């Protein structure tokens, strides 16, 4: 977003199905060449938003502008907004080349040019030699790449993706993430990526849009969303966060009788978020104040291990530690630990000044 006119603008867009409001008045600008992830729990309206952009749903109210043109009612086949379906929706009665060629055929591109572009796109996605393969003889990753080639062959200005990786094996997901980010950078086009997976959204996108109950809750860079969630909904959805409430007095927050550091916040009740990787774990009571919590379980998370604890008043706490450190701590269920953080680690969710 460099101040230039956005490629897409949603303004006060609503969509209802009878009494059910799927999307309740969203405003969103998407820039050219941007990788935007729309993330939220199921039923939050993210897929409906994407489908409205593709012309597969007509907004009930508001306007959707693409390239400065209001496109609310432009039929899907008159837009150039290819979508990659969760099910991929490859045509089973056509082979690989015929699937990829489909969009060009519908635009009456001459045969010779179609063949040249199909060859180019199959090569780009590492599908040379698969031209005449039937779709049901491809692996999951190959199907995925056919779907991408089929959508990108018309060289659109934007590509829409609806949870395209959710059916893949974990190791393929990471590989396809690489393919997608590389393609997006190379082509310089806009990607709008709908997902419920935080790791996919954070790994690939420039900006993340968090939706909940048909509304946009927060828009920001992945880092902002993770470190500074706007409210409890985002903080809970993003995961690996600790949400604590207490009363602030003189640069400290009182959580269940333990006074922990909280810099730069005036006195009053507050709700704070501390990311799991900012939590310190101690095997014995440290000299500074810390929350005493019983170990519950551990969860391997690649870069480290997420440990789950139960703190005072059934408070759920999480801390991320490197694997080597975990061995030192030798946790067992029920074993007590002490958790604390640096004064500048917490992010304040809500805060009311004064009144105690």
């Amino acid at each position: 977003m460099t101040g230039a006119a956005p490629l897409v603008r949603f303004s006060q867009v609503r969509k209802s199905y009878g009494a059910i409001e799927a999307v309740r008045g969203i405003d969103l600008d998407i820039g050219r060449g941007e990788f935007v992830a729309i993330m939220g729990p199921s039923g939050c309206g993210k897929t409906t938003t994407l489908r409205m952009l593709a012309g597969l749903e007509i907004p009930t109210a508001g306007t959707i502008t693409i390239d400065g043109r209001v496109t609310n009612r432009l039929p899907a086949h008159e837009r150039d907004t290819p979508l990659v379906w969760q099910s991929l929706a490859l045509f089973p009665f056509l082979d690989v080349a015929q699937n990829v060629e489909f969009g060009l055929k519908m635009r009456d591109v001459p045969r010779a040019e179609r063949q040249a572009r199909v060859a180019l796109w199959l090569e780009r996605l590492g599908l040379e030699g698969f031209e005449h393969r039937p779709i049901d003889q491809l692996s999951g990753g190959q199907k995925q790449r056919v779907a991408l080639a089929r959508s990108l062959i018309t060289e659109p200005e934007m590509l829409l993706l609806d949870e395209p990786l959710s059916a893949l094996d974990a190791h393929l997901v990471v590989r396809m993430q690489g393919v997608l980010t590389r393609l997006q950078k190379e082509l310089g086009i806009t990607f709008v990526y709908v997902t419920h997976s935080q790791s996919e959204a954070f790994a690939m996108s420039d900006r993340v849009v968090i939706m909940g109950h048909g509304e946009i809750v927060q828009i920001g860079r992945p880092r902002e969303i993770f470190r500074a969630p706007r409210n409890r909904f985002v903080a809970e959805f993003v995961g690996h966060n600790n949400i604590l409430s207490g009363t602030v007095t003189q640069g400290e927050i009182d959580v269940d009788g333990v006074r922990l550091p909280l810099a730069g916040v005036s006195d009053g009740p507050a709700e704070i978020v501390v990311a799991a990787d900012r939590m310190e774990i101690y095997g014995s009571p440290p000299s500074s104040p810390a929350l005493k919590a019983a170990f519950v379980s551990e969860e391997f998370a690649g870069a480290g291990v997420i440990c789950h604890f139960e703190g005072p008043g059934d408070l759920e706490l999480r801390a991320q530690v490197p694997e080597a450190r975990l061995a030192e701590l030798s946790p067992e269920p029920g074993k007590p630990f002490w958790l604390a953080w640096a004064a500048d680690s917490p992010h304040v969710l809500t805060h009311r000044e004064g009144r105690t």
Partner: protein
Amino acid sequence: MARIPSIYPHVWRVPLLIWQGLFFVGPLILMVAMSFWLVRNYRMEPDFVLANWERMLTRDYFWSAYQVTFLRASLAAALASLFAFPASYALAFKVSATARRWAIFFLIVPFFTSYLVRVYAWQVLLAESGPVNAVIGFAGMGPFTMLNSGFGAMVGYLTLVMPLVVILQTFSLAAIDRNLIEAAWNLGASPRRTLVRVIVPAARVGLILGAVFAFILSFGDFVSPFYLGGSKPPTLSILIIDTTKSGQQWPRAAVVAVMMILTLFTVAFAAVGAAYRRKA
């Protein structure tokens, strides 16, 4: 322990095999054999002579009946598929699931009554003094002769096959993954091109099976050509009746029947092959 379950699934095939053996393969073999028998003094004698085959296959009336039957059955299959498609399309895509269930039910209802009864009803409706001509008469035209003609026979064939063709087409269209249709729009296909490029190919199996059933039922039918078509020109089924009536020529009728069965096998085999063929 391992042996008992290996026999078990085969047990269930036995009744079907017995049934097929008794009522399909047995009579079929008998009929083929009979086509080589001899008729002497209005009585059949088991024999092995080629006279019946030679007699039937060298007669023009056999081949013209064959041609009429084949063309009529093909036309019935084509017309039924064509007329059924808009209805099937509407049932598959334009109405609610409840409406579709009711429609399927009402498409089954015609099978409750004898086909013969429905054909008799057409005799009344299509008569020169019948209600259809009365309506046409209001428009200042007619009366038209609709009975005892190829048209009459075709009305009968369609009466027989249309409900089944609509049901088969509806099921195959309704089973299409909706995402495929949306994907076609999304890739720039207009609704008309989506129909031709995606919906018809995706429903191909059901569409071909519908046409094959229409062909098979019309090809073997004798009620429509007899009661509505006036037996002229004769179809193969009418030829069989005529042949058996005249001088107990069962072996010659068997030749006609064997030729019909060979034709149906060929058509069904080719059609099923086409339905499940992979595009190269």
